[in-house]
């Protein structure tokens, strides 16, 4: 909403420079977005909040300013009009759509250019001047906030006004010259045959007031805000009028707005009133309820001891009727334009606004001990982040919405999904049921930008049917960290990612993880593994299938992916890690080199070693896997390093010899593993 300073001075006198004025209005809740010099005038661009449609006009702003500056408000005096007894033909089909319609017929009018005092005011605000009658309707809208429309009365077929819904397919050419096709969701003003205006939005060309016009019918009405908003959106058509109707116009201004416009038309275009009709179907509307406000509540809510006199003055300046209710409380009736004032807190806000929030005291709240527990997942998520950040993985945050195509390309289209009913585009149609497409998309865009080495993770939600579930996913591509001391970079592989997961499991204090080969369409055959900790399935891990990558247009690259259910991690995490005693005696390390049949897994071998090693075996580390000439065909070589240590004594060569031998024997007996 644009406000001319010069015009504003018609209603309240002030001497403030524009910046000061803008500041005062802004700090009272009427935000000034921009200050512009227009000729000798200054125009303020205002941002009016949706609860204050009463400020979408000069009188409304002036009323606020008069309260802020404590200056009198000067409203134009409208001479009492003697209305004729003759009635014009006005009919409203549904009072829910239009609760009041005041039509006034004036003749003969002389339609010509506006007087300079009206013209200059409108053009300062960038308004286009049409003719005196139309300009007066615009002037009154800006002055009072009541949208008005003038029809050429002679062009209304049957001299009739019918407020009704449009028929399916009915058309109208609006004042902007565009032919518009209507449907029954649109409210129109019709004459005996056809729509002549889109109610509350724009008039029609056929009944436009021109210099040829002799008789006019002036419309001042009140339409349903929701209906106007929906029609405006449907037709893609906005106007100063629809803008105000959408937000709600003052019911009692219908008559006052009409009176102001009539008196101006009579002065500026001549003529006399020949007919009028006020169809008022609004039972009880416009009645104003009183609100009782206690001074003590004002003090308690604001934390400020404002005097009763001060509160009363402010409210009166804002047009409220204020009377004493009982000692220490006011009975307040808001002006009819203030439909937003319903409860005591609304009145308290009025006082606070005009006093100025910056003038209210500042205290620190008392924050007491409370029942609401902190959500433990929050610090847990941070711990998880720290573990992966410490291993060189960077956190991503990606959109939770994605398209069907990315699910299909990820072979995830069988997952239950939640769809958005009104997506902006098909790219944001589905709530992601998996983190995989999000992360692969990120890897792809980084690769396309020449960044082929990536280690990323995300903690976020996935949406499976009606449930949303926090999940954790990791993805890596390219080489592991380069080190200039070794000549060749090494490509990251399955075990790099598995190692990161192992670290996570150890650091979170989860039961040791078990990895079991599994087939998953995401993964290249033979590279997928399910991750289990104790009895709980945590997630999976593997090398992303090459043909899947091709569908994503990622070529000549390997990508590794793992996902874990966040809540399972959280539930299993051991928050009561107990201290384990360690031995004071020295360790003895022995390596063991084995030839193992291909069908026997590492885990099988390790399990036997651990079991046979018993208490004396402190640690088993894996040194090497190799295949080659020195190993019989169908076998692989494993080298382990075993650390023996006792809690009771220093181990002797004999002790070691015995247990080491037992392990070798057990491996041979149980798995057919040969010592090398």
């Amino acid at each position: 909403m644009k406000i001319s300073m010069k015009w504003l001075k018609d209603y309240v006198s002030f001497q403030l420079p524009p910046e000061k004025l803008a500041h005062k209005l802004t700090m009272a809740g009427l935000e000034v977005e921009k200050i512009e010099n227009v000729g000798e005038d200054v125009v303020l661009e205002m941002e009016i909040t949706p609860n204050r449609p009463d400020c979408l006009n000069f009188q409304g702003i002036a009323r606020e300013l008069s309260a802020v500056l404590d200056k009198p408000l000067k409203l134009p005096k409208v001479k009492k009009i003697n209305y004729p007894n003759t009635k014009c033909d006005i009919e409203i089909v549904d009072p829910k759509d239009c609760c009041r319609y005041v039509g006034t017929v004036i003749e003969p009018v002389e339609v010509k250019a506006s007087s300079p005092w009206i013209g200059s005011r409108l053009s300062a605000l960038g308004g286009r001047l049409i003719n005196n009658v139309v300009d007066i309707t615009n002037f009154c809208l800006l002055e009072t906030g009541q949208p008005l429309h003038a029809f050429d009365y002679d062009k209304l077929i049957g001299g009739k006004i019918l407020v009704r819904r449009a028929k399916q397919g009915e058309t109208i050419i609006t004042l902007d010259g565009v032919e518009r096709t209507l449907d029954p969701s649109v409210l129109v003003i019709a004459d005996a045959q056809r729509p002549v205006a889109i109610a509350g939005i724009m008039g029609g060309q056929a009944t436009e007031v021109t210099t040829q016009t002799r008789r006019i019918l002036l419309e001042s009405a009140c339409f349903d805000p929701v209906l106007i908003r929906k029609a405006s959106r449907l037709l893609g058509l906005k106007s100063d009028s629809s803008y105000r109707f959408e937000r709600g116009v003052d019911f009692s201004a219908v008559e006052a707005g009409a009176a102001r416009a009539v008196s101006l038309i009579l002065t500026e275009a001549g003529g006399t009133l020949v007919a009028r009709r006020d169809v008022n179907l609004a039972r009880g509307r416009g009645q104003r309820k009183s609100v009782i406000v206690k001074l003590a509540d004002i003090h308690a809510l604001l934390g400020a001891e404002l005097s009763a006199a001060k509160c009363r003055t402010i409210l009166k300046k804002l047009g409220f009727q204020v009377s004493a209710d009982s000692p220490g409380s006011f009975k307040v009736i808001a002006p009819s334009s203030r439909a937003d004032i319903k409860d005591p807190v609304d009145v308290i806000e009025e006082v606070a606004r005009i006093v100025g929030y910056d003038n209210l005291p500042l205290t620190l709240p008392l924050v007491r001990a409370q029942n609401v527990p902190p959500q433990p997942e929050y610090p847990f998520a941070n711990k998880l982040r720290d573990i992966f950040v410490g291993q060189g993985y960077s956190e991503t945050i990606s959109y939770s919405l994605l398209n069907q195509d990315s699910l299909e390309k990820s072979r995830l289209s069988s997952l239950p999904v939640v769809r958005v009913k009104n997506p902006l585009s098909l790219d944001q149609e589905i709530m992601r049921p998996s983190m995989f497409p999000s992360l692969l998309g990120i890897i792809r865009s980084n690769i396309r930008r020449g960044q082929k080495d990536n280690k990323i993770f995300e903690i976020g939600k996935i949406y499976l049917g009606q449930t949303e579930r926090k999940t954790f996913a990791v993805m890596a591509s390219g080489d592991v960290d380069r080190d200039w001391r070794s000549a060749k970079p090494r490509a990251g592989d399955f075990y790099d990612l598995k190692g990161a997961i192992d670290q996570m499991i150890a650091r979170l204090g989860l039961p040791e993880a078990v990895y079991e080969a599994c087939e998953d369409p995401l993964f290249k055959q033979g590279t997928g593994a399910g991750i289990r900790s104790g009895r709980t399935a945590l997630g999976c891990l593997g090398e992303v299938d090459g043909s899947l990558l091709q569908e994503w247009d990622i070529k000549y690259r390997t990508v590794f992916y793992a996902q874990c259910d966040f809540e399972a991690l959280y539930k299993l995490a051991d928050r009561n890690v107990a201290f384990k005693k360690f031995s004071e005696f020295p360790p003895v390390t022995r390596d063991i080199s084995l030839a193992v049949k291909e069908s026997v897994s590492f885990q099988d071998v390790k399990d036997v070693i651990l079991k046979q090693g018993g208490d004396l075996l402190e640690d088993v580390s894996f040194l090497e896997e190799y295949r080659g000439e020195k190993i019989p065909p169908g076998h692989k070589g494993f080298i382990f390093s075993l650390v023996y240590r006792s809690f009771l004594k220093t181990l002797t060569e004999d002790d070691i010899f015995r247990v080491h031998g037992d392990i070798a024997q057990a491996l041979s007996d149980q798995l057919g593993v040969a010592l090398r």
Partner: protein
Amino acid sequence: MWNFDDIQQKALQEINACKDLDSVEALRVRYLGRKGLLQEIFASLSQATAEEKPLIGKGANQLRASLTEALEATKKRLAAKNLFSTQSLDVSLPGAAPALGHKHVLTQIIDEICQIFVGLGFVIQEGPEMETEFHNFSALNIPIDHPSRDAFDTFYLESKDPQDPKRHLLLRSHTSPGQICIMEKYAPPLAVVIPGKVYRPDAVDASHSFMFHQIEGLLVDEHVRFSDLKGLLTVFCKRFFGEEIIMRFRPHFFPFTEPSAEVDISCYICNGKGCSVCGRKGWLEILGCGMVNPKVFSAVNYPKGKYTGLAFGLGVERMAMLKYGIHDIRIFFENDKRFLNQF
């Protein structure tokens, strides 16, 4: 007869003048080697007279001892120097360590903001993203025909609301329904911050995203005042933006708070003079806040008139953009490595 003094003096001069181990070795060979000068001297003993013999023997032994000592000393000195000049480290070469990753900047901002409030006695809670119309609108005093309920402003899901099968679930358009979730579950006193993702069907451009993050704050107790709201948020702004920050509380409108305010901080680019970042206003809007509307309390069945509360909500991306001078909201969700690695 040999002039041992001359020989020794000359040899020592040569040895001391050596610049590298090779020349030391060459001298060693020349003087002490199998065909060296000392061998020659000892060989001359056979032709020497009986008086000469002990003198030559003594002189030769002395010469050998002193040359050996000088050669060793020089060798040591050169070897030490050698170590320094050819095997010393280029300390300017890069160190080698496993690279650390980075937490996303939004996570960092969320954590920084939440921890300020945790330090003031608040607890962190999270709420669901798929919400009911009741939580997202009705309970927050947003009437049934309010424009923000339109499909233009809120994403609706195909799933129906199990409590109200005529209505669909939606993606929360702000974190304020989190207030309702907490109040439905707990009685005051309560002080919570609720960070999370929110969704709005805005066409994506440099300043709009259909998904972004907010942090909601709520304090409800028996005597919470507007002055407390001012105090609390002033402390927050000073801790987050710095002690010298200038801020103001400006009246605004939110259906779920009354009185409502927006908080502006003085533009960090122009110090309040007006520039393109602040739209020539000199102020940057950073958060919305207010006193909880009693209608919200009645929606969660709190006893009438017993409690007052303060609430606030802020946009995480906006805070990050202000703090780091980022001008395009899309960059947060592109996850380009060059972006992630900066924070």
